[in-house]
């Protein structure tokens, strides 16, 4: 019997330790100040954030948008993948904007759900999502000039505070991290932020000729690609995407029958301009720029008189060709999108909600704890222990399963506090009755728990069913309520039946107590 207790207590203690350990991440993350966060190693910080309880937009502040893709005008074939393509285009734009942990999901056939934590620049976000993509053709700066400009930046930096006295890199600070290979400038992923910082410096900007700008290539898709391309182009836009009529990927270029190509057709209006542009820049590269990202920079081989160009893709795959064709033709959204739902919560209200929700949990919890202790005396304290245990496990499970905590979710926890004691109330009332009918305390406990068991099971099952239905109904934050309520029910069933019983049995056996105040 005694051995049995040790094991059972061990289980409870291990659960408590694990739960507290799991919660320690949340506590550590929540107590970090903005300053501490900025000083922390970003990898460590994101790992900590990942392990902490994930807050819904109504608590963290942010923007929730549901878009609908209007397919009314697309052919059946185009309509098939339209939502997926729109999603990719939008993801691409949001990635560039640099929102941390955005959620971009397909919802049903023609909807896209976007959740942007922390973004409050509504206009900017809406533009990112719904705006017409800016496709532009820009001339790249030629070899000799690029090398000259890189050298110039090196010179500027060597005179700046960045140059350390003892460094061998003083002479070529920029050219050592931005390596020009004759086509583009390669920058290691880990140096991207540094290059951005350098390019944004006033002294560097002043040293650059006024008519050129640095533009990044697409952010590397695969994780094994370690670098990102940087291009130096003339800021003047030669042509915009409006001049494109059609773009198709195909196989068989004029030089290589197996080579991948993209055939580009321009409007008649643009064709004349294109002829002039290509004619004047044979041998130069022209960058295809989508939303300020250089997608490709093909070399002009000959003057193109009729608006029909062929872009040779070199060693690229057909998939690359297709995606370039999409960018050229439908780099804009494949179909119009419409915002059909938008919910924005400011960070102040979010923080306020967290504070108020936690206050309600603490105050409500303490009131219930006091009530139970007064009404059921010693037994009430046991129930109080179970309730506290319950809430700790509930939070731990939330963070373990990466569930999202919302304001209704906090309400679910509060409700759990109110109803979790129900099981103990049922048991205690039973025990009281059994004692009254003349049973010994020990047998009263046994029959109290036994008789209350099925009732508790039924009661929990109905509430759980309601919570599951609610999860299905789940509009955003409401799902959070269903989640915390369900976890609360399951956990409280365990604590009320298993944990409190264990304490009672142990106390009665160990101390040979004949009666506990109940």
């Amino acid at each position, binding site marked *: 019997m005694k051995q049995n207790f040790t094991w059972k207590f061990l289980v409870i203690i291990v659960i408590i330790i694990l739960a507290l350990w799991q919660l320690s991440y949340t506590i550590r993350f929540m107590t970090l100040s903005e300053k501490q966060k900025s000083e922390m190693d970003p990898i460590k910080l994101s790992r900590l954030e990942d392990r902490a309880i994930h807050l819904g937009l109504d608590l963290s502040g942010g923007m929730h948008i549901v878009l609908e893709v209007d397919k009314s005008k697309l052919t059946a074939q185009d309509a098939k993948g339209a939502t997926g393509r729109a999603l990719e285009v939008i993801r691409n734009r949001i990635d560039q904007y640099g929102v941390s942990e955005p959620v971009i999901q397909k919802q049903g056939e023609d909807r896209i759900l976007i959740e942007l934590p922390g973004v409050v620049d509504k206009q900017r976000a809406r533009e990112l999502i719904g705006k017409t993509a800016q496709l532009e053709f820009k001339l790249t700066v030629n070899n000799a000039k690029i090398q000259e400009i890189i050298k110039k930046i090196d010179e500027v930096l060597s005179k700046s505070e960045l140059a350390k006295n003892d460094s061998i890199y003083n002479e070529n600070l920029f050219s050592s991290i931005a390596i020009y290979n004759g086509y583009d400038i390669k920058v290691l992923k880990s140096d991207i932020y540094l290059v951005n910082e350098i390019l944004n410096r006033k002294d560097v900007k002043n040293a650059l000729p006024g008519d050129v700008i640095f533009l990044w290539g697409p952010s590397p898709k695969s994780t094994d690609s370690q670098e990102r391309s940087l291009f130096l182009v003339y800021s003047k836009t030669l042509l915009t995407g409006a001049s494109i009529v059609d773009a198709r990927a195909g196989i068989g270029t004029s030089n290589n029958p197996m080579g991948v190509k993209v055939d580009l057709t321009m409007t008649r209006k643009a064709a004349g301009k294109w002829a002039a542009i290509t004619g004047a820049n044979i041998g130069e590269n022209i960058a295809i720029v989508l939303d300020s990202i250089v997608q490709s920079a093909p070399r002009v081989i000959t003057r193109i008189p009729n608006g029909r160009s062929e872009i040779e893709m070199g060693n690229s795959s057909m998939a690359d060709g297709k995606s370039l064709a999409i960018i050229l033709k439908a780099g804009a959204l494949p179909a119009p999108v419409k915002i059909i739902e938008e919910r924005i919560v400011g960070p102040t209200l979010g923080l306020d909600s967290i504070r108020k929700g936690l206050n309600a949990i603490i*105050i409500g919890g303490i009131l219930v704890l006091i009530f139970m202790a007064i009404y059921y005396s010693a037994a009430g304290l046991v129930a109080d222990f179970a309730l506290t245990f319950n809430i700790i496990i509930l939070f731990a499970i939330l963070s373990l399963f990466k569930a999202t905590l919302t304001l209704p979710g906090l309400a679910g926890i509060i409700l759990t506090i109110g109803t979790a004691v129900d099981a103990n109330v049922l048991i205690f009332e039973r025990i009281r009755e059994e004692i009254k009918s003349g049973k010994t305390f020990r047998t009263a406990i046994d029959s109290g728990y036994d008789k209350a068991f099925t009732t508790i099971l039924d009661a929990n099952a109905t509430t759980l069913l309601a919570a599951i239905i609610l999860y299905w109904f789940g509009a955003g934050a409401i799902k959070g309520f269903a989640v915390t309520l369900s976890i609360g029910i399951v956990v409280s069933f365990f604590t009320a039946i298993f944990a409190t019983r264990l304490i009672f049995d142990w106390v009665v056996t160990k101390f040979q107590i004949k009666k506990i105040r109940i």
Partner: protein
Amino acid sequence: MLKIFKDTHIDFVKARKRAYIVSFILIAITIVSIIAHRGLNYGIDFTGGSLVQVHFNKNINTEKVRNIVSEAGYGSAIIQRFGKSNDYSIKIINIEFIKSDTVGPEIIEGYAEPNPTNGESQIIIHTRAYDKEAIISNIEYSLKPFDEANDNDIIPVRASDTYDSEIEDGIFSIKTLTMKKGDIKSIYIRATDSQGNVGNVDFVQIKVSDLGDNVSIDDIKSEIKKDVDIEKTAENLKKSDGEILKEAFDSKLGEGSVRIDKEDMVGPKISKELQTKAIWVIILGIVIMLLYVTFRFSFRFGVAAIIALFHDVIITIGLISITNLEVSTETVAALLTLIGYSINDSIVISDRIRENIKKLRKENFITVVNRGINETLSRTVITSLTTLVVLLTLTIVGGPVIRSFSNTLIFGVLIGTYSSIFVVAPIVVEWELKSPSRKLKIR
């Protein structure tokens, strides 16, 4: 030992007639209130529209807020002050969606190829149309001016997406067989949008000539070319109601005088879906509970519990109506929680009655029922109390956002507790009195 109820022997069954009257009156009040209020006070989740919650940095009265909001074009907005004195919510029902586009698409580019012909049998007319607001559906061509043309003369061509959603292309080909050499014909072009608006009419002239007939393009001044500033359109993306209001407040009260804390916009499609879903979720909740209770208990208890459930939901809705509480998705969550709670309460009491039926075979049914209710009375009241305590805490300190949830549930718990004592068991008793089941002994 502290006890709320000391061995009560209340005759709940006898009191059932009075309880029926109370319930009947409450349901009647519910119906009257809903009629008097012309339905419930639905939030934008169900009506569609915008809700903007603002915080002012300085003191301001509701009248002033109302004036500024009105001037910004939201005359019918519902303005509510809550919480701290300078927090307001501004509810705009559907206004955004009533306002619709009335301008048709504009023809911005058009040319014929080849033009003039060099003996080709057909001429292709390329057209480009532009509409900032709505989606362009068709580009229409006609050889007669549109006001003289009948339906047969007008040939609609589905516009195709080329570059973006605002600019659409159409291609139309016309045979030259019936045209005589030297003919100059006008092709009239216009476009329609998805809202049914028709845009301006433009035309392209085509000329038929033979090989060697040297007509320069300049002879035919027929190409339509209008530049549309695409970048400007991107900037002109429709502002949200919150931004419009913020601008209005900033201009009247000074820059930075207001902070937008929350902004919800629910489109009509979503709100309709939420309406349907809300009704279904309540029905589904009740049906599943019915199945569960019938499966676990007798059919009669099941039916009684479900009647109590309807009773609770209806009267709770009545209280929502009387207090003019907003009905949101949170309310639906609260109602569903109430369904679970109400059944839970009924189960506890029914369970005890069932147990007593077995235990007290000699007693008559009414005594058994009364005893069951009395024995579980403490539990019923204590659980209601602890639940009410936390819900009241939530209402008081939880802030306005969650109030529609906590208040609904407070109403529900009160009614649910009442019904589990005064409605469920008495219905079973009533049934038993009318048609006794064989197992039980009555009186």
